[in-house]
């Protein structure tokens, strides 16, 4: 997929969203919707400009590097797992697990190295945020 095709898709999607912002803005009470309507119109005009720009004849744009979907999905799942586990099981169970899986699967580190880094970094986070900055990080089932 060329950058022009992507730009056209982004412009269309954002154009629709900006159109919705303008319509909702114009329906707001008083002058509360004035600024959203102005910002939305600006966005609409930019989208229109981008679409027209992509239709102009010019040398083909270079292709963006291919997205490694498999790694992107694994990494996104790891992050979703971290956020989900943080509030349920507790931050200091979720953190080492997240680090261990990411370092092992994405960084291809050996189990021992991944485990050492995961535990050391989690301990560092504990010292800095819980001990020094007294941030009440989600404890999840650890406390319940």
């Amino acid at each position, binding site marked *: 997929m060329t*950058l022009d095709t*992507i*730009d056209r898709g*982004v*412009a269309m999607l*954002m154009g629709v969203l900006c159109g919705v*912002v303008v319509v*909702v*803005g114009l329906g*707001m009470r*008083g*002058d*509360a*919707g004035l*600024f*959203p309507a*102005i*910002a*939305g119109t*600006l*966005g609409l*005009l*930019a*989208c229109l*400009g*981008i679409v027209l*720009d992509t239709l102009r004849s010019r040398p083909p744009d270079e292709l*963006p*590097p291919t*997205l*490694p979907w498999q*790694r*992107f999905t694994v*990494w*996104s799942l*790891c*992050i979703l797992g*971290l*956020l989900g586990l*943080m*509030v349920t099981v507790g*931050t200091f169970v979720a*953190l080492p697990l*997240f*680090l261990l899986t*990411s*370092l092992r699967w*994405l*960084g*291809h*580190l050996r189990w021992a190295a991944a485990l050492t*880094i995961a535990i050391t*970094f989690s301990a560092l*986070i504990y010292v800095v*945020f819980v001990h020094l*900055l007294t*941030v*009440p*990080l*989600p404890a999840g089932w650890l406390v319940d």
Partner: protein
Amino acid sequence: MDVLLPALGNVMAPMALLTLLLGTLAGMTIGALPGLSSTMGVALCIPITFSMPPELALILLGAVYVSSVYGGSVTAILLRTPGTDASIATALDGYPLAEAGRGGEALGMATLGSLFGGLFSVIVLIAIAPPLSTVALAFGPQEYTVLAIFGLVTIVGVASDRPLKGVLSAAVGLVLATVGLDAFTGVQRFTFGQSELFEGVPLLPVLIGLFSVSQAFNLCVPAGGGVLTSKEQKLKGRGLPLWHDIRRSLRTMLRSSVIGSVVGILPGAGTSIASFISYNEARRHSSTPERFGKGELEGVAASESANNAVTGGTLIPTLTLGIPGNAVTAVFVGGLTIHGLIPGPSLFTDHAETTYTLILSLLFANVLFAVLGLWLCRYLVVVTKVPGAVLGPMILVFSVIGTYALRNAVFDVWLAVAFGVVGYFMERWRYPAAPLVIALILGPILEVNFRRSMQIAHWDLTTFFTRPLSLTLCLLVVLAVAYPLWIQWRRRKLQR
């Protein structure tokens, strides 16, 4: 002087010096790592500063900012892998010098150039910021409206090679800035019933998402996620350039520092632009221009003086007018606001001691990175051997926990991750993130002051042209729009 002495006392306190040291070391390391930017460094440090007194917090952020710009030069010279885009021009002559066995001299010149540029820009900051803040006290809503438009127009113009993408990014930022309860009518705008959004889209999670979480994606997702650079460093020869070379480069350093400071003051233009302009100027004024690009110490001095001179310059409009000129200062605004400091003239009246503490700490940070740089630069290269897929998860964990620490809200963490994904694809598809962030900051300033102006002037738009200050700023806006268009027109004409 009434404020300078207590501020100096703040900087000289043992805890402040320790913070300065840690901030400088962290900044140098972040700067040396290819792919990690000054913006990301400052954004990641904000959550740590949350429980600090404002003075210490600003010392840390300032130290990370100035030293990260310098840190990029080390890997640019020794590995031809600029740690930040500010040091791309440094690599042009730095690496050939390193290859010729003069890496130590090149690093020494880069350090001296950075020190010169950094100190020069802080002096400019001290000289210009207080009088400018006095002028800013005379600003009314009309002036602030036009000033915010000026900030937006300039950042859009230079943030991308396709200005329309910058406009779209800024428009999205402006729309996001309208989220929350309207300050004038109390109407809920685009909150979807989420109480976390009643006060608007929180700035810091957006900043951390766009600049840190997206960077973690950039490090982890590429196939291999390997070592940032596997090149071998070429640090040989003497540690400092000869006095003759330093004296020869003094004029270049001064010229580049002036260019860097001026470019820094202009919204939108950043460190890389300043260093390339200065590099070209140094070559134009040199008696041996043919040596540039093949290993000329003056080229290193020009680039490094300029990029470090930008740091003080960018803080002038940020601190005095509350108008951030680039992504780093936008993050800086976020750092100031979580400590209850509202960027603008009040920083020099109500919080003068804290503000001068920041300014003086920048002086100290410049000296400190120079001293540490000469000593530690060869070891800094080691950090580039850390694989991206190892660094990425750590940055993500730090971003997630840091974002949570801001308001103890899981909602903010989700927001940061969502903006991280958005930022990742924006970078891939070449949509600049800086206009979005700056529009998010300037949006409320623009809206509140525009509506106030309209209330005062009974919806008469000529109010922006009847006040001398406002009219001058309007002319600047016209200039900011017309100049890039004129350049583009001239380039097309020449091509024909």
